[in-house]
C-alpha cells in the first residue's frame, strides 16, 4: 500500500536504527526520550521498536492518552449525566473506564442510555432525530478533537438544536509539556512530539518551551520509519548539543498548523486552568465553553457537580502518565489489571500506556 509499505520497510528501519545506535554509543549515558502521544506509544509497542535500540535508550510514555489524563472529577460529570437519565454520547474508549466501581459499559448494561459514537456529528444527528431526548456529549480529547466539537456547537446554534449539550474536558498539550519539563525528577532528554496534535497547532507553540528547557524535540509521524528517524534526529541534536523543534512529519504537519481548526477552537472555547490525572492542576491547560455558548454547557444546564473519587489502591496510572513510573512497576499490571478488567484508565484506551505494554506482551 502506498505510503504504508515504504514507511514500514524493515531494511530502512534497521539502517536508521543502526545510525541511532551509533549516536547512543557516543553519548554513553542513559538517554530518556518521551513520546508524548498515545498513538506513538501504541506504534512503538505494535511494531516492536524498543528492541531495535541499545540498552541506554529509555523510551518513556507521556500524557498522550485523552481518557487517561482526564481526572476522576471529570469522569464524575459524565456518570452523573448518564444517571440523571440523559443520553450520553461518547467515543468508545470511555466505555470501560473504571470509576468508583462503575463503568459506562456497566451502566449501559443496567439500562442507562449510553451510545458510542465515532464522530460528534453522530451525536448531532441523534439529537435531531430524537428531539424528545436530551443528549450530552462527553468532550474528551486534545487539540485534535476539540475543533470537531467546536464545529458541532456552532452547527447546533445554526440549526437551533437545543437538546444537545457538552461536558468540556478538553486538554491542551503545550502547557502539559511545560509542566513535565519543569518537574525536577523526570530529566527528559528529548521529546517525540505528537503528529496529530501538531497537524492542528503547527510548530510554533513548542518553540518557546524547547528554548526554555533546552530539550531537543521532533514532530513525528506514526510509522516505524518515522519514529526511528525522529529518535535518530533527537540523538543527533543531543550529540551536537542543540535543542530545537524539528519536523519529521513534513508530509502532514505544516509550520502554521491548521488555521481553520485553530479559529474554530478560539471561537467556541476559552483556555482555563485544568486538572490532569497525574500532573495536577496546570494553568490554562483546559478548554471551557465561552460565555456566549453557555446554553450548550451540560455542567451549567444540568447543575452537574464534580465529585472526587479516590484512585484504586495500588494503581500507578498517575505516575505512569507523567512518565515517572512504567506499567511494569505497577503491582496490578497484568495480574489484576487487564484490558477487559481495567483498574486504571491507562489500561483501557488503545492509547493508554499500560494497554500498549500489555498488547506488546511486556512483562
Amino acid at each position, binding site marked *: 500500500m502506498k505510503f504504508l509499505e515504504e514507511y514500514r520497510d524493515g531494511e530502512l528501519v534497521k539502517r536508521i536504527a543502526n545510525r541511532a545506535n551509533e549516536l547512543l554509543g557516543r553519548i554513553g549515558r542513559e538517554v530518556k526520550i518521551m513520546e508524548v502521544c498515545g498513538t506513538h506509544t501504541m506504534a512503538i509497542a505494535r*511494531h516492536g521498536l524498543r528492541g531495535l535500540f541499545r540498552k541506554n535508550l529509555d523510551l518513556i510514555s507521556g500524557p498522550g492518552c485523552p481518557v487517561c489524563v482526564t481526572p476522576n472529577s471529570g469522569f464524575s460529570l459524565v456518570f452523573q449525566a448518564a444517571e440523571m437519565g440523559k443520553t450520553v454520547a461518547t467515543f468508545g474508549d470511555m466505555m*470501560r473506564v473504571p470509576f468508583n466501581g462503575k463503568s459506562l459499559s456497566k451502566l449501559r448494561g443496567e439500562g442507562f442510555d449510553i451510545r458510542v459514537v465515532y464522530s460528534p456529528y453522530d451525536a448531532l444527528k441523534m439529537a435531531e432525530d430524537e428531539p424528545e431526548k436530551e443528549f450530552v456529549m462527553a468532550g474528551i480529547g486534545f487539540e485534535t*478533537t476539540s475543533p470537531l466539537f467546536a464545529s458541532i456547537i456552532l452547527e447546533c446554534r445554526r440549526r437551533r438544536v437545543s437538546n444537545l449539550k457538552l461536558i468540556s474536558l478538553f486538554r491542551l498539550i503545550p502547557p502539559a509539556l511545560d509542566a513535565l519539563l519543569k518537574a525536577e525528577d523526570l530529566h527528559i532528554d528529548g521529546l517525540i512530539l505528537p503528529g496529530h496534535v501538531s497537524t492542528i497547532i503547527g510548530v510554533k507553540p513548542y518553540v518557546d518551551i524547547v528554548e526554555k528547557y533546552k530539550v531537543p524535540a521532533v514532530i513525528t509521524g506514526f510509522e*516505524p520509519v518515522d519514529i526511528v528517524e525522529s529518535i535518530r534526529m533527537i540523538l543527533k541534536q543531543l550529540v551536537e548539543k542543540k535543542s530545537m523543534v524539528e519536523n519529521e512529519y513534513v508530509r502532514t504537519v505544516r509550520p502554521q498548523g491548521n488555521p481553520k481548526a485553530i479559529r474554530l477552537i478560539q471561537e467556541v472555547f476559552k483556555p482555563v486552568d485544568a486538572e490532569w490525572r497525574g500532573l495536577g492542576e496546570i494553568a490554562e491547560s483546559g478548554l471551557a465553553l465561552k460565555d456566549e455558548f453557555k446554553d450548550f454547557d451540560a455542567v451549567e444546564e444540568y447543575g452537574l457537580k464534580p465529585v472526587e473519587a479516590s484512585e484504586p489502591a495500588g494503581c500507578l496510572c498517575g505516575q505512569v502518565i507523567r512518565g515517572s513510573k512504567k506499567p511494569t512497576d505497577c503491582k496490578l499490571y497484568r495480574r489484576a489489571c487487564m484490558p477487559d478488567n481495567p483498574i486504571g484508565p491507562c489500561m483501557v484506551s488503545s492509547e493508554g500506556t499500560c494497554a500498549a505494554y500489555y498488547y506488546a506482551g511486556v512483562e
Partner: protein
Amino acid sequence: MYDKIVLEHGAGGRLMHELIQTISNVLESPRRGVDKAILNTKIGKIAFTTDSFVMKPPVVKGCDIGMLSVNGTVNDLVTMGAKPEYLSLSLIMEEGLERDFVMRIIESVRRASEKARVKIVTGDIKVVEKGGCDKIFINTSGIGMVYRGVESSTLNAKPGDAVIVTGSIGDHGAAVLAARGEFQLEADVSSDCAPLNSVLEALVKKRVPFHALIDPTRGGLATSLNEVAESSRVSIEIEEEAIPVKEEVLGFCEVLGIEPFYLGCEGRLVIFTPQAYADKAVRVLRTLEVSKDTCIIGSVVSRSKKGEVRIKTRAGGLRALPMLQGIPLPRIC
C-alpha cells in the same frame, strides 16, 4: 468481575472464553472449556456442535446471516475433523420483518447447504414481538462423522509444526464493520464466508497429517492462535510479512486503528502440520478455489507452559500477539 452480561462477553475475547468455561461445566464434555462434542458410537465418532448467529447488519457484501449460519456450523464440524452431514435450522424473527427479506435469507440457507453438501433435516420458526430481537437470529446445529484416524482436537500443536493459513485474513470482519456504515467509510471489502469441508477432505485424501485445525472466526487469527498455544502449551511465532491481508482490508484497519489479526474470518482454516509436510499441504490446498491463497505464516517454536504467540513485525521487531480483549474500540485523539 461483572454482575451483568456486557457486550464484550460475546466478542470472542478473553471474557467470552471465561464465560464458555463456566457454561461448559454443565456440558457432558470430556474436557473443561470445550463447547463441542465428539460422541463415541458403535458406528464411529460423531461430531456434534451448535451455534447461534446474530449479524448486524444481516446482509453484508459477500455474505448474509443465512449463508453464515450454514457455513459457521459446517466449519465448526470441519475443525473437529468431521465430514459435515446434517444440520438443524431454527429461526427467531422480529415482528414486522419483510417477507421478501425472509425468503431471501431462506434461499441463501438453501444455496449454502447445497454448496456445503449438507442436508437440513429439522427446523423451527419463532416470531417475537417488535423489539424482542434484532430482525433475525438463526441457530443451527450440525452433526458429522469424524474421519477415521483424524485427531479431532485443537490441543495437539507440537514444536516444529508449520502454521498455515488458507487465505487472506480479516475479510469477513472488515466487511461487517464496513456495512455498519457507522464510520462512513466506503470500503470495497467482501466477506470470505465459505464452507471448508473440501479443505479437510483434501488434507485427509492426500494424507497430509495435522496436529491442530482451527477456524479464526470471532477474535480473529490472533485469538485463534492463542487458543491453540494455550491448549497445546506451545510457543508460536508468526511473521507479519507472511500473513496474507488484502490491501482494502489493511487500509480499512489503518484508518480505524485496529489490527487485521483481530478481525474474524468465516472461510479460513489455520492448520498446524509437521514442517516436513508443510510444502505439500500448501501445494494441495492451492489447487482448491476456497484455499487458493494458502501460505505458511510461521511455526511452533517451542514448548511453553502458559502458551504464547509472538509476531515478527514488518519493521523487524518481535512482540507478543495476545488474545483479543474486549471489543476493538476506535480511538479518540
